[in-house]
């Protein structure tokens, strides 16, 4: 059996790390869906406040999305531009 090289170990661990980082993308999706559902309920209860509800939701959802993109950036850098391989 061939011994595991340092590069292979780093690439394997990076792939696991990228997979773990992608989990961060699920949270904002669930959260945004939940917010949209509650927003729809609120508009049903108070239709005249639709403008305020959508404006508040827009700002909140846009900022909440950024955490998912953080994870995505980390995952893609680990997969396609891994800085750790160059350290060997």
């Amino acid at each position, binding site marked *: 059996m061939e011994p595991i090289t340092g590069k292979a170990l780093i690439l394997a661990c990076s792939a696991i790390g990228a997979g773990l980082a992608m989990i961060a993308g699920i949270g904002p999706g669930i959260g945004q869906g939940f917010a*949209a559902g509650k927003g729809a309920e609120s508009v049903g209860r108070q239709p005249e406040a639709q403008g305020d509800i959508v404006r508040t939701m827009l700002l909140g959802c846009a900022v909440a999305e950024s955490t998912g993109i953080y994870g995505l950036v980390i995952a*893609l*850098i680990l997969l*396609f531009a891994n800085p750790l391989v160059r350290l060997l």
Partner: protein
Amino acid sequence: MDDTWNLQKKIVTYTLMVMSVIALGALWVSEEPKPFIYALVFGTLIGILNFRNLALTLEKAVTMDPAAAQIYASSKYFIRFFINAVVIFVSIKADYLNVLGTVIGLFLIKFAIVATSLFNKSALFKRNTEGKEEE
């Protein structure tokens, strides 16, 4: 007209202004500014389009049934997530685009939102005192 059109215009204007300032700064500081500026413009434009898509999604979602709105908003989020993934992947693979510039461009609209709405002290003060005046 859309409920959020004025807000969108304001946020996009601030984002473009901040992008111009960062691009001019890169032009001033860096010796090879082209990849960074191209990537910054690319990332910012995609960020603005994603923001517009989010606004359209939410405007439609609030008129739907709550259970359908949840599924609709989540599925649209994952489409935007995939678009972001493609954009970052392209900027990693292309030599003429700087990855950092693209990532900064994608986040610029979020920074603009935080800077204009959450740190707007006069609006916060007005919101806090509105209820008390009525009492």
